[in-house]
């Protein structure tokens, strides 16, 4: 049994269930095998929003739920030698480390070793306009926009170094998501960083776990079709990995959710494009030969993973200050709701035209068609189904002129008096937008470094 290493996941995004890590750590401790726990809390834009936070307060800019996530599990992980890795440092890993140090002292863990990984932030070190643009982003125009953040997706190597330095908690900013799982496996098993078949297993492990409950029943359950036990308490995933590259996905026993062929297939293909080329900084994963087998209750074995050499380049995602987004909503319901909603939509667009507001706008009829619709409302305009009992009318307007966007959103408010019969429930808001664009940079241009100190030293 000592051949097995456990990798647990405690969060799949910033905003995930904060009590999710507790049963995962309980399970890791109970099983008594060597293990690591990782948190993935950094989406494409999250680091830019964190950078804006840091501008407001130099001690902020890391994952806002960090203390809530770590407090219930930090002492158990420390005492049972379960290292914690996370990209929860976001735009400010040193400040996150200081927060964790203060938490550790409060919990009576002054010897907790905290590593800070640096190097992902390339905003001031690399000129973006000389880099090739990532293919999916070619159409975004950011030439005149102000840069907020630029971060490279760094791989497992500095995280492995942190573990070698004896870190109990590894605080990183932008890393590739799979690297958070690859690193403890490489460290524990001594896999070489060019053993592509093994790294492929690590990358698949990370990919399957990085979205937390998405492999254990989250965004999966569909009542009457794909039912899962206790969706209010979905267990977050745990992977069992062997030195030879065996991989089984499972979850804590005392939780809801499910691990079966369906959940694993959905997550295996999630955010994947060419299944033969899933590019990570550490390995290019090929799942075309992958097979799955249910090997027990809530246990799925993943086999046939192949790896190809890591790319020469890393992805850099840059965020720019964008335009303003104004949104307003009102409701209509009951007899003739559809006609009133359609007329309201037309009147809103007519008001923007008459006032000459320089915005790009769209109207949704929530309850008729919205999320599947296009900006011109093709679906709700063409809707011929039954009369919906309750419709929410939403205006979204965007532009670089804050006042024009604000005025556009306020046109929805004005409907409280000027709208159709029975119009109510107005809400509106104005938010700044972030634009992102991804580039490719040669990996040698992104040097990384690791500093490991105890909580006592950091807090001093």
């Amino acid at each position, binding site marked *: 049994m000592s051949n097995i290493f456990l990798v647990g996941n405690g969060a799949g995004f910033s905003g995930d269930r904060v009590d999710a890590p507790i049963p995962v750590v309980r399970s890791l401790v109970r099983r008594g095998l060597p293990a690591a726990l990782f948190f993935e809390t950094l989406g494409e834009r999250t680091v830019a929003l964190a950078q804006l936070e840091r501008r407001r307060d130099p001690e902020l800019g890391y994952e806002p739920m960090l203390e809530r996530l770590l407090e219930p599990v930090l002492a158990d992980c420390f005492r049972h030698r379960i290292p914690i890795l996370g990209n929860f440092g976001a735009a400010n890993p040193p400040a996150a480390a200081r927060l964790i140090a203060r938490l550790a002292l409060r919990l009576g863990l002054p010897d907790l070793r905290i590593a800070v990984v640096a190097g992902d932030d390339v905003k001031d070190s690399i000129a973006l306009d000389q880099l090739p643009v990532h293919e999916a982003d070619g159409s*975004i125009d950011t030439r005149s926009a102000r840069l907020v953040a630029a971060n490279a997706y760094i791989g497992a190597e500095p995280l492995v170094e942190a573990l070698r330095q004896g870190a109990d908690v590894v605080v990183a900013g932008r890393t590739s998501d799979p690297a958070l799982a690859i690193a403890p496996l490489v460290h524990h098993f001594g896999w070489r960083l060019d053993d592509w078949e093994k790294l492929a297993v690590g990358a698949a492990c990370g990919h399957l776990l990085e979205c937390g409950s998405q492999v254990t029943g989250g965004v999966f359950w569909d009542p009457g079709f794909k039912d899962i036990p206790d969706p209010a308490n979905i267990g977050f995933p745990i992977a069992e990995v062997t030195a030879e590259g065996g991989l089984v996905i499972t979850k804590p026993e005392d939780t809801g959710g499910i691990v079966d062929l369906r959940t694993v297939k959905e997550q295996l293909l999630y955010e994947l494009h060419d299944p033969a080329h899933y590019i990570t900084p550490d390995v290019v994963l090929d799942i075309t030969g992958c097979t799955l087998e249910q090997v027990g209750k809530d246990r799925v074995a993943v086999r046939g993973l192949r790896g190809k050499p890591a790319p020469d380049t890393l992805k850099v995602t840059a965020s720019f200050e*964008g335009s303003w987004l104004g949104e307003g909503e009102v409701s209509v319901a009951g007899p003739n709701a559809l006609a009133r909603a359609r007329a309201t939509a037309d009147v809103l667009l007519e008001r923007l035209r008459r006032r000459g507001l320089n915005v790009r706008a769209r109207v949704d009829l929530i309850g008729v068609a919205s999320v599947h619709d296009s900006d011109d409302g093709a679906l709700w305009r063409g809707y011929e189904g039954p009369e919906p009992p309750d419709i929410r009318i939403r205006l*979204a307007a965007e532009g670089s002129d804050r006042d024009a966007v604000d005025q556009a959103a306020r046109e929805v408010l004005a409907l409280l008096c000027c709208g159709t019969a029975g119009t109510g429930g107005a809400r509106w808001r104005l938010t700044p937008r972030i634009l992102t664009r991804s580039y490719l940079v040669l990996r040698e241009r992104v040097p990384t470094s690791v500093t490991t100190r105890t909580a006592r030293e950091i807090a001093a």
Partner: protein
Amino acid sequence: MTEMVEVPLHAVAHSRAGDKGNRSNLSLIPYDPALYPLLAEQVTEERVLDLFRHRGATRCRRYDLPLLHAFNFVVDDVLEGGVNASLNLDGHGKTHSSRLLSLTVRVPRALLGRKETGRMQP
């Protein structure tokens, strides 16, 4: 002769949507692996692109995973600029999986209700 019935994909398959930039990927996984060849024949790139043309989608590629009995559809330019630029409530296009599952297919009645990897009811 086997009787064929027309059903929404939702009755016989499941799906999840993901995004990168202005591009969506949609998995399509039949509950019953026996349906894999039928879906391969009927759920073409063209039909899936047609589902999203009103959103400006320009291209759809289908990757087949016969060992997993699954498909991966990659739809370009479908996210109205992507999560940062879209005026849509669902800028990530996470709900697109449900639109894919609204597409109809013709399947043998005998295969409805069969399950191997999960429950399925028409």
